[in-house]
Each structure stands twice: as structure tokens, then as C-alpha cells.
């Protein structure tokens, strides 16, 4: 579904992405893992067209994304730090996004209800706590029934109950055959969600394996331990 081919990106002297190639298919739930500053968010932003790579190609459903914009209607994106216009209320933001995306299908408002955002519709965005903003971002990412979900550190600010609800929702969407790309440092959250793992370090892709392969190669049952082993190996 998404094919990344030899993508490189440089910010000044920093090589954020170094010749990355990989592919993601339908029905997979892929974890992007790596230490801070390893280029996970940059890779995601490249897929979204927010950062334009210096070289390499990205294809979405067989079509090159450079210069294209319609493909983004098939992506639900939840940013690491959701930032919205301060003066707007939650209700206005939700309406605006619906207006902009003009969806053909029925809106998926499961998360709006689950997080009881519908009771906060009049609140201004600047008065919200970090966790509530995260909830709004999450609800927006799922609202338009996208084929691909890209979640950047989704559970970082959520309380345990919201986080559980959110994980259930991700599993349900994965069952429907959607592609879920997720980055997180809270590996225990990922354990029962992901089917594949992409490990990145200093802008390079170290490996892209299914979780069974990873278990077999490291000899550990839990994702936390296998990744800890991989990280220790690459840490020097």
C-alpha cells in the first residue's frame, strides 16, 4: 500500500533519513521503533507530504505522492503534539475538519463518544489540557474512516482508561483490514497490537521484521525485552 524507496532527507548538517526503503501493506499494524531523534517522525511526515524528501520516491496505492494531495483523504493522522487554532472550540475544529474533508461515508464518532469529547464541544482549544488535546487528535484521526492510520506517539498523554479504549479501537480497525502505522516508546502498549516492527536508528532503517521473526531472532517472548536487546546491541 505504501512503498518507500531510497528516501533521504537532510536538515542542515543532520541526516534525518538515510536511504530508507520499506513497504507497508493492508491489514498490518506496524510499529516504528527507535531512540529519540532516529527519524521516525520525519519518515511519517514524508509519507504525509509535510516534509519533502531530498531524494527517493514514495508511492501510495501505486501512485507517486509527489505533487499529489488527494491520497491524504485516505489517511488519518494523529500528530505527536496536536496543535490547533487557539481561538476555536472543539466543536468548531471538528466541524471545520468535516467541512474540509467532506467525507462521503458516515462519520466514525466512536472515539468522540468514548472519550466523552461531545460533552466538551464548547471548550476553546487553548484551555484544554495536553491529554484532552491528544484525545481530540485521536478522535479526528479515526473520524473519516481512513484506510491508513498514522499514529505518532498516540498514548503518550492519555490516562490509562483512555489508553485502553484507544487500543481497543486500533485493534478493531486493524481487524477491518486497515493499515496502522504507530510509533511509541511505551513498548508494553504495543505488545498485543502490532504485527510487524520497523526499527530505526540515526536516520537509517535497521530492520523490518514480523513480530514472530523478531521473537525467534532474539529468543524473547515480550516485545519490550526483544527491543531492549536490539537497542543494547546497537547502542555502543
Amino acid at each position: 500500500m505504501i512503498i518507500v524507496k531510497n528516501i533521504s532527507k537532510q536538515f542542515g548538517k543532520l541526516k534525518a533519513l538515510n536511504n530508507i526503503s520499506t513497504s507497508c501493506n493492508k491489514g498490518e499494524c506496524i510499529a516504528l521503533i527507535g531512540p529519540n531523534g532516529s527519524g521516525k517522525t520525519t519518515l511519517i511526515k514524508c509519507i504525509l507530504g509535510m516534509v519533502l524528501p531530498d531524494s527517493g520516491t514514495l508511492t501510495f496505492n501505486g501512485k507517486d505522492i509527489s505533487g499529489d494531495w488527494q491520497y491524504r483523504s485516505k489517511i488519518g493522522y494523529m500528530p505527536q503534539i496536536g496543535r490547533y487554532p487557539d481561538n476555536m472550540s472543539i466543536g468548531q475544529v471538528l466541524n471545520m475538519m468535516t467541512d474540509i474533508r467532506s467525507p462521503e461515508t458516515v462519520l466514525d464518532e466512536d472515539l468522540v463518544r468514548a472519550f466523552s469529547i461531545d460533552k466538551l464541544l464548547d471548550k476553546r482549544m487553548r484551555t484544554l489540557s495536553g491529554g484532552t488535546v491528544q484525545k481530540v487528535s485521536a478522535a479526528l484521526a479515526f473520524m473519516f474512516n481512513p484506510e491508513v492510520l498514522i499514529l505518532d506517539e498516540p498514548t503518550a498523554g492519555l490516562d490509562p482508561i483512555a489508553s485502553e479504549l484507544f487500543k481497543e479501537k486500533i485493534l478493531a480497525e486493524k481487524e477491518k483490514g486497515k493499515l496502522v502505522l504507530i510509533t511509541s516508546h511505551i513498548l508494553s502498549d504495543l505488545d498485543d497490537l502490532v504485527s510487524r516492527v520497523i526499527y530505526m536508528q540515526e536516520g537509517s532503517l535497521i530492520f523490518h521484521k514480523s513480530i514472530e521473526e523478531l521473537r525467534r531472532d532474539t529468543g524473547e517472548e515480550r516485545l519490550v525485552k526483544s527491543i531492549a536487546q536490539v537497542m543494547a546491541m546497537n547502542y555502543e
Partner: protein
Amino acid sequence: MNKIVKYVITDILRNRIIIIYTLFLLASALTVFSLEDNSSKGLLSLLNIILIVVPLVSIIFSTIYVYNSAEFIELLVSQPLRRKSIWLSIFTGLASSLALAFFIGAGIPILLYQANMIGLTMILSGTVLSVIFVAIALLSAVQTRDKAKGIGAAIMLWLYFSLLFDGLVLFLLFQFSDYPLEKPMIGISALNPIDLTRILILLQLDVSAMMGYTGAVFKDFFGTYPGLVFSCAVLLLWIALPIWLSTKKFKSKDL
């Protein structure tokens, strides 16, 4: 695209600055017209206020607006929208609300006291100046991510167009006073939209007789039909060129 323009305009109107700006223009226009018993004298005083205030407010407000909506722009870019239409919508929203503020603040009093060719020229020039300086502001704001740098650049640009440029021209005139500079002056005046609009309006007033030989050359050129077409084309170019450049830059910008 229309949808984004709508959100930009509602967002700007929610901002009190634009209303204060309108009221300020309204107050100064009414004061100037009621102080002078001759309303064409009032128009001249208003001209000087407009040529200073309109570019200043347009450029600073637009720059700050673009920096403050960085989040909004980021949000829009991750949605199925063309980058070009996002950028042009922001421009359209800013330009139309500033032009509207000018029209209500200065246009209505001018129409009340001086509803003739001079008044109309002045309303048109003020509106075009508002749009030009929004375009220039967007061009300078797209260059850097640093808000302080961006606002500093906007202030420098305003200072250049309203003060430094005239100083440079005077310097040139003195240095080359032995040569006939009247014709090149027409070309040089095209380099500054504020000067161009000032000349356009002054030529409509009787005071152009006081500008000496250069004034006569200006009158000969700008007073004619081709001259008018030339100045309109130059003013439009002052809108189109910055917008074209900034759109190009925005399309390849990392957010």
C-alpha cells in the same frame, strides 16, 4: 479553497486588532475632513496618514498572523488539500479583510466628503496598497521559521518602502544632479508601490504644479492613458510577483 478562506476570515474577524484599525482609520479620516474647511486639503492630509499607516498595519498584521497560524497551517497541510490553495486562501483571507477594513475606515468618509475622481483614486490606491503589503508580508514570512526574525524583516521592509527608499532617491538626485534624471525617475518610482500611488494621487490634486520640472514630466507621463495603464500594471505586478514567489517557496517548505 473557499472553505479555507471562510475560516481564515472568521479567524481574523475574531481578532480585535482589525476592528481597532478600522476605527482608527475612521476616526482620523473624519477628524481630518472636519478640521479643514476645504475638503481637498483634508484629502491631502489623509493621504499622508494613509501612505504611512496602511502599509504598516498590512505588513505587520499579516506577518504576525502567518506566524500565529503556524499550527493551523500545519494541520491543513496534513489534510487532503493542495498546498497552493492553502497558501492562496490565507492570502485571500488577509487581503480581503484588510481591504475591507480600509474601505470601511477610510473609504466611506472619503465618499462622504470627496465623492469625485480624486476620492475614488485614493480609495482604490489604499485598497491596492493593502493587498500589496499583504503579499510582501507573506513573501517575507515564508522565508524563515523564526518569528522574531520574520517580524523584524517586516518592519525593515516597511521602513525601506516608506522612508529609506525616498532617502535613496534624494541621494541619487543630488549625486547626479548634472544629468537629466526626469525620465529615469519614472522608472525608479515603479520600484516602490507607495511612491507610485502617491504620484498617482498627487497628480490628481492641483499641488502637482508645485513639483517643478519633474512634476511636469510625471504629469506628462502618468497623466496620460498609457501612463495610467503602466502604473496599474506595475501595481498589479507588485501583488502578483510576491505571491507567485511565496507560493513557490511554500510548496517546497518542510513543516
